């Protein structure tokens, strides 16, 4: 009787909300695309995307271009750019250009997967803390505070020393495990304000379970903010991975930009081989810049006041 | 010559989509010691008008045309530094959002002292404090609260303190933008009485902005009714109250007066919903035409004209002739 009417009302608002969200998304995209900052970010990112894609090609042309194992038989020293090696070679005769291309692939892989995981953790924990309130909330937030004051790079290092050599996926997981608190704080405060809105009460009256409320009613509303955070987390993940690799704790089976920098540093070529020193650093800096620019452009679309934690890392 | 003369003032906001007119060809003048009330529904441009007089429009707002003459000065073309000397010393403003009008990290007393000492650099601190104490007496706040922080004040106290600050430099004109909207009825009444008494005592000119025609009637000598950026009816309080001519004024009054028949108001309808800025305001035709019960063919084809009911009472409507 009355009950079904209410259910229907709840459904109607949900449907209306969906179309409203879509409209908001389209408006937001228009705003985003108007913004030169966002455009520049997308352009840079596209360049790196192309780099990552074509990184598969050189090893097919000649095994000497394999970034890890390919060695130019005629070269036994670090050499500058040439027609055969566009950026030169490292001290073992490996081609720097293919290493650079492969680095883009690794950066994307690490950045996006770590960011995605940390956003999933952060959003879940934030929604649960905000929705459950009371003790759960306090406990989760204290826990988040604790993780937040830990220097993530050094923690991962320490774990590496305790648990032995890390492979790239463990590194990704660890980065994600230490980067969620900032996200969960924001998502929590958004959830708290959403909880005050009538449509949540309506859903509850209509008999929706907590799970359903969280995933059907709250999640869609916090998703834009989570996306925003994801772009910032990508940059942070790329930087942490690069720093780990730079310090010699990367996955020895991958070529990342951080690894390239470690090689040029550790083999003492940094004063002699600018062609080796410059490109990886420029790439790391630019790829972080591009994600960061995209994040900022998105942020202008979303409500920037919701963000308390600034985007460090 | 009157203290304040506003001629043909047109104010617009640039937004991403368009340039929206928020006040359209506003004319009025105000003598020393007189008070005028501006009434109208939310979003009709009252605040915009007040801000424009002090040249405090937001960065996307600008005066399109018109003149504002204050005490012989053309306010709109005054150099910035001279305008700074006019602000507060000559024209003070009580803001709509008194709750947020105080800097939260500075003591209230210091903020008032700042106003006094900016305009009178020679005054000593002790003298200035003495002045603040007198002002506090006037607005009935205990003097030992002067140097509290804003968050330690209640809403009504903040509002009273704002009034005290507005009086601090003995201005010639005060613009009060809904000074009581956020308060409960009793406090609201006290503060209105205060404003009225002070205005009379100090012979200050007052522009009183409100969406509540009853409040305005209690405070002001003259009333201007604003609708969608235009003044549609202006006159002395008694005239507007007793012989409201414009259909919108009548609607406002009817929602204010529940006893029917006193003013023979027949239009039993609620005031128009707030206008959206997306609808063009600059259109020459009467903006009220879609809600007006008296709208005729003439209203839909010709712009309304100003009519004088009496020398002091004017209406912008095609209805009466």
């Amino acid at each position: 009787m009355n009950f079904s009417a209410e259910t229907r009302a709840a459904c109607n608002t949900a449907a209306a909300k969906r179309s409203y969200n879509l409209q908001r998304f389209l408006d937001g995209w228009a705003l985003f695309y108007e913004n030169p900052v966002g455009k520049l970010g997308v352009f840079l990112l596209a360049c790196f995307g192309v780099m990552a894609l074509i990184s598969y090609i050189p090893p097919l042309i000649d095994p000497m271009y394999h970034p890890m194992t390919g060695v130019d038989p005629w070269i036994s020293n670090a050499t500058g750019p040439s027609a055969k090696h566009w950026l030169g070679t490292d001290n073992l005769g490996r081609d720097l250009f293919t290493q650079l291309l492969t680095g883009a692939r690794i950066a994307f892989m690490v950045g996006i997967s770590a960011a995605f995981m940390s956003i999933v953790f952060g959003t879940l924990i934030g929604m649960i803390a905000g929705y459950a309130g009371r003790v759960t909330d306090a406990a989760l937030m204290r826990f988040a505070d604790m993780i937040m004051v830990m220097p993530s790079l050094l923690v991962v290092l320490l774990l590496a020393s305790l648990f032995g050599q890390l492979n790239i996926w463990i590194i990704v997981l660890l980065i994600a495990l230490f980067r969620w608190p900032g996200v969960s704080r924001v998502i929590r405060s958004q959830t708290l304000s959403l909880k005050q809105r009538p449509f949540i009460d309506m859903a509850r009256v209509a008999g929706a379970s907590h799970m359903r409320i969280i995933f059907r009613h709250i999640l869609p509303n916090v998703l834009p903010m989570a996306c925003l955070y994801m772009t910032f987390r990508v940059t942070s993940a790329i930087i942490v991975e690069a720093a780990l690799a730079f310090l010699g704790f990367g996955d020895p089976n991958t070529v990342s930009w951080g690894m390239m920098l470690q090689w040029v540093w550790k083999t003492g070529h940094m004063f002699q081989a600018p062609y080796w020193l410059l490109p990886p650093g420029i790439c790391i800096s630019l790829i972080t810049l591009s994600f960061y620019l995209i994040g900022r452009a998105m942020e202008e679309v979303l409500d920037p006041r919701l963000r308390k934690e600034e985007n460090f890392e | 010559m009157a203290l304040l003369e506003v001629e043909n003032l047109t104010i617009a906001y640039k937004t991403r989509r368009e340039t929206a007119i928020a006040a359209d060809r506003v004319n009025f003048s105000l003598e020393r010691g007189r008070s005028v009330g501006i009434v109208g529904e939310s979003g009709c441009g009252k605040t915009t008008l007040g801000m424009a007089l002090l040249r405090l429009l937001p960065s996307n707002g600008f005066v399109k045309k018109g003149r504002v003459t204050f005490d012989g000065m053309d306010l709109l073309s005054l150099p910035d530094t001279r305008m700074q000397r006019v602000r507060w010393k000559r024209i003070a403003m009580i803001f709509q959002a008194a709750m947020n009008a105080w800097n939260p990290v500075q003591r209230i007393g210091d903020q008032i002292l700042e106003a006094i000492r900016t305009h009178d650099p020679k005054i000593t601190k002790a003298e200035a404090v003495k002045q603040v104490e007198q002002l506090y007496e006037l607005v009935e706040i205990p003097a030992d609260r002067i140097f509290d922080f804003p968050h330690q004040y209640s809403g009504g106290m903040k509002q009273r303190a704002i009034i005290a600050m507005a009086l601090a430099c003995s201005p010639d004109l005060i613009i009060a933008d809904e000074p009581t909207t956020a308060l409960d009825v009793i406090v609201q009444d006290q503060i209105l009485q205060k404003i009225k008494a002070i205005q009379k005592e100090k012979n200050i000119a007052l522009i009183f902005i409100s969406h509540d025609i009853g409040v305005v009637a209690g405070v002001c000598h003259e009333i201007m009714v604003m609708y969608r950026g235009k003044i549609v009816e202006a006159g002395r309080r008694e005239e507007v109250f007793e012989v409201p001519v414009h259909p919108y004024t009548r609607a406002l009054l009817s929602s204010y007066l529940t006893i029917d028949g006193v003013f023979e108001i027949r239009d039993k309808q609620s005031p128009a919903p707030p206008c959206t800025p997306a609808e063009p305001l600059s259109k020459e035709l009467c903006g009220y035409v879609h809600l007006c019960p008296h709208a005729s063919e003439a209203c839909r084809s010709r712009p309304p004209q100003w009519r004088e009911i009496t020398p002091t009472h004017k209406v912008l409507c095609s209805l009466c002739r």
Partner: protein
Amino acid sequence: MHFRKLIFRRIIEVMAIFFLILTGLFLLFHLSPGDPVSRMVQPGMSAEDASMLISQLGLDQPLWLQYLYYVKNFFTGNFGISFHYGQPVIHIIGRRLPNTILLFTTSVILSAAAGVFWGKLVAWYKGRPIDTWVTILALVCHTLFLPWIALLFIWIFAYHVGWFPLNGMITPEVWINPSAGFLTKAADIGHHMLLPLLTLFIIHVGSYLLIMRSSMLETLKEDYILTARAKGLSEKRVRNRHAAPNAYLPVVTSIGLSLAFSINGGALTETVFSWPGIGRELIFAVSNNDYPLALACFLFISLVVLVANVIVDVLYAYLDPRIRY
């Protein structure tokens, strides 16, 4: 007073967090594969020394008792013997910690001050060329990869131009000379510190600037700014007396949140410049499997971050009367 109670509560909170970190580290140490004894006691040690160390650290006791020993040892400063140095870990920490604190605090304070100053100005001139260019510059600084920029600086300023020493913190010849006064020594340290400081400065100043800029832009929308203008204050006074003090608050919060990040950067900088700090020591110890040293370094770094957090909270409470009163 309210203020004191607040700070007191914060200190308790921070102590609890530190205790959790302490415990977490213990658990990790025992969960990880590998024998705790062989990780804490260097293989080459004489049997006597080894057994003494083992009993000191409680490694022959049941796990829960070991934990108590561990906590007690933390408070008495007994962290075992460093494998690499062959000295008690606490001595090494004692030597390294001041160097880190020197570099860390100087860099945070300088970059925050500069970032706040420029952020304030740039927000004020929003939309003008100076805003656009400084903001772009800040964005670029913020996203530069720290170790790389450190290497680049060494390459340019120390190697090519030769203005600065390549690495380290002191020139031994200067310090050996008995006639060297305090000023000479301080100048020597300053000379060594400039490049690492510049590196950290460049990396951090951008983020502080961006935060201050956006905070300032938010503040400028507030009603009290309008009041300040209406009062006839000069624009400069509105900016410096009314907008800026309010805009500082979110910046201070972010500084607190970013301290952990700053210490990461500090460790990287120390490593590249061979600055004898605790961050470099940690990285070094981890590379050499010097577990006693690594664990202790980590604990002290956490402690530095937590203490800095409390200081930041005090600063916040000092700046915001809503907390103070």
